[in-house]
């Protein structure tokens, strides 16, 4: 039998009103690689943060090698050999590799550093020298140093939060080999958090699945489960509340032809040969786990990102070389994923934020009249039932739902021709979601072409006429809504196409 090195029983944790984890049981077998699978927001990171002592659970207890730990804190967790690699690197950029690896006082290779560094460089096939500064390394190399740091700190339980998100396929493959060596030769116990099915099947021996804070599957032996099983577990049964889709469709309003785009900040090519069309009166759903090129595609269509190859055509007019303002004048609206920070400027008043879309148009000018701006804001408040007590207060004082209503109202009140909506309902409560869905459908019925980017399959199936799946910057599948089923969309999102 496997020896259980760490066990968490009956763990619950909530943040404010949302319960992130509900009576979760979790355990790790010594020297195995475990996969922790789940959608965004399923509670994976919360669970890992509890195991590494960063969060305190409300209920439940944690046992390490059979011993009950009363109150786990980061210091204690480190002493028991639990280490975590976070999604954002926690390396000191202007320190050398050696300094970063030996920084912690729990470092065990103080005297024979070079020897150990050589050994693990070999395992990770890292070619950099130990005196190289971190900021001279590539993203993939930094990731390797992060994992090596755990080894140098004598962490025998290694929690890796989405380690492959920033890696190329070759680097991912390399990581797989390294991790297998670590578990078989060094007896490391590893947890890999991911939502890519291919990786979970190739990397791990045992799989746990979290769904909405509940552990729906425990210690599944990887060789015994199929991808379809995993998708069903991860996504659950989706109650599709469909809306009428028999409205009149018209001409192609948005055409995107052969878009290629390379992201300068990462070595993963972000978009490869993307072509799509959206008709008037149609909602095209873009499915995909975030970070697969959706933001880039939306930015290209809206004119924010200009360094790309390919064509963007609105109403038959090629606008590939035009800027944001010219595209706005063609009545193209963009509801960005990041509502506070991109769609709305934090630290600026509600009234100023309400005019972002067309402050330069004559309706408000030539001198921005505060009365006209206020009238406009009041119109938005009335039409979209926004709760905003003080127009001069900073926009960040609004609740998430009201912020999104303000943003969507501002972008939709002009009855746009083309609407790009990215994650329009993420993080909002049910009633706000319902209201925002109605807004989108209303615009569709008025003849707008809607491109809806979402990770929420429930939302995509409810609103879309067609669904396209983006995976690593490519369109991997396209479905008509009648022919689509949750399982095949889910598989495609996780990078698995038969």
């Amino acid at each position, binding site marked *: 039998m496997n020896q259980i090195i760490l066990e968490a029983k009956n763990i619950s944790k909530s943040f404010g009103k949302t319960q992130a984890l509900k009576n979760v049981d979790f355990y790790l077998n010594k020297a195995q690689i475990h996969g922790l699978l789940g959608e965004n927001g399923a509670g994976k990171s919360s669970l890992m943060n509890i195991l590494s002592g960063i969060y305190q659970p409300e209920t439940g207890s944690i046992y390490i090698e059979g011993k009950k730990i009363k109150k786990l804190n980061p210091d204690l967790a480190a002493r028991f050999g639990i280490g975590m690699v976070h999604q954002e690197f926690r390396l000191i950029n202007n320190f050398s590799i050696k300094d970063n690896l030996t920084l912690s006082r729990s470092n065990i290779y103080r005297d024979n550093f070079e020897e150990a560094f050589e050994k693990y460089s070999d395992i990770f096939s890292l070619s950099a020298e130990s005196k190289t500064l971190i900021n001279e390394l590539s993203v993939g190399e930094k990731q390797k140093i992060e994992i090596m740091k755990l080894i140098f700190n004598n962490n025998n339980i290694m929690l890796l939060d989405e380690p492959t998100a920033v890696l190329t396929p070759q680097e991912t493959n390399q990581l797989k080999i390294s991790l297998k060596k670590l578990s078989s030769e060094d007896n490391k116990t590893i947890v890999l958090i991911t939502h890519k099915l291919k990786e979970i099947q190739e990397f791990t021996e045992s799989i746990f699945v979290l769904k909405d804070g509940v552990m729906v599957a425990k210690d599944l032996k990887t060789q015994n489960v199929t991808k379809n099983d995993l998708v069903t577990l991860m996504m659950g049964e989706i109650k599709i509340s469909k809306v009428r889709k028999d409205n009149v469709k018209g001409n192609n309003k948005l055409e995107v032809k052969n878009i290629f785009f390379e992201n300068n900040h990462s070595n993963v090519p972000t978009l490869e040969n993307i072509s799509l069309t959206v008709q008037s009166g149609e909602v095209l759903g873009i499915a995909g786990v975030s970070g697969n090129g959706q933001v880039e595609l939306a930015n290209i269509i809206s004119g924010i990102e200009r360094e790309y190859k390919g064509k963007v055509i609105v109403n038959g007019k090629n606008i590939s070389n035009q800027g944001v303002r010219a595209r706005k004048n063609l009545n193209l609206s963009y509801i960005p994923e990041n509502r506070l920070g*991109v769609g709305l*400027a934090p630290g*600026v008043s509600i009234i100023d934020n309400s005019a972002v879309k067309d402050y330069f148009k004559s309706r408000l000018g030539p*001198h921005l009249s505060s009365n006209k701006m206020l009238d406009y804001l009041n119109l938005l408040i009335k039409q979209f039932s926004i709760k905003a007590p003080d127009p001069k207060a900073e926009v960040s004082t609004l609740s998430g739902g009201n912020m999104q209503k303000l943003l969507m109202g501002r972008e939709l009140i002009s009855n746009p021709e083309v609407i790009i909506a990215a994650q329009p309902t993420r993080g909002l409560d049910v009633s706000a979601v319902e209201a925002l869905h109605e807004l989108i459908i209303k615009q569709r019925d008025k003849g707008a072409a809607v491109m809806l980017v979402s990770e929420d399959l429930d939302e995509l199936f409810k609103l879309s006429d067609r669904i396209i799946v983006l995976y690593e910057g490519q369109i991997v599948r396209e479905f008509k809504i009648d022919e689509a089923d949750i399982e095949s969309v889910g598989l495609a999102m996780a990078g698995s196409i038969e």
Partner: protein
Amino acid sequence: MNKYLISKKIVTNDLSTFYSFLIGLSVGITIGSIILLVQGQNPIEVFSLMLRLSVGSIKSISSSLNKATPLILAGLGISIINSVKLWNIGAEGQIFMGGIALNFMYISYEISNSKLSIILLLLSAFIGGSICILLPAAAKVLFGVNEIITTLLFNYIIIGFTVYLVNGPWKDPNSLNFPAATYVGKEVYLPTIFGRLSYGFIICILCTAGVYYLKEKSVFGYELRISGGSALTAIYAGINAKQKAFIAMLIGGGLAGLAGGVELLSQTHRVSTGLSQGFGYTAIIVAAITGMRPLGIFLVGSLFGALTIGGTVIQTMGVSSYIADVIQATTLFGALISQFFFTYKIMKVSEDV
């Protein structure tokens, strides 16, 4: 476990800046009084004398307003730049550079029409201020260099340059070895409206109105606000945030340069190291106290001008003129602290998040 959380108030009070200024002023006067008491002076006597000598007569009022003029102009410049959430600490250097550029124009070109000449000279002072902030502005938008450091350091460069000019090429041979440039001719002195009040104050009123329009009513001001709030939102809205920030910095520097030009043509009449008496730094206090509001800068600038005049004249009583500086600084301190309580509330939360 109870924790305390600081969060923004949902409803803001329009007059909160004004109230916090009043609170700050009373803090300033209280601390000033304590210092006077410790020195064995009667604060009421000292303050009433200050009041009488700074606003008690037409003559003293006009002196106070003349003193206020450079504070207000430089403060307006700081306020425009702060629309994009950038800080101009270099108004002092820009004031000197304004004076230097004006003097350069004056000795290089001769214009017979004195009115036209004054306008052109003031224009060159404005441009001088802009040139002074050009490098920090370019470094900011091109490379993201912190403008607080660069504008501050430029003060030392420009003051050094001034020392060089008034000891070297521009030194007035008739100044009995006092390091100062030659006086400008009487024909380009700014005329007075009444008493000693120079036309510089009219320029000041016009600029206040202009900056108010630019910040609050113009599309440009709106673009500055959005760019200052979030560069990403600016890009999303189709605003060239860097270009707007650059232009705002040039205008702001120019206004401080204009302050130097007005001061030269109305008060000192020559370039010397005494052209500015820390106006550029006091202007930061004025702008900060008022929450960068143009009208507020005008009013508080006027008050600070009066304080400075009051501080100068009470020296005859054996009281140090620094009492005015103490009041100005502690007013800022009190006002900023009370602004915090007007914009934030402290909440007790029972659960840690």
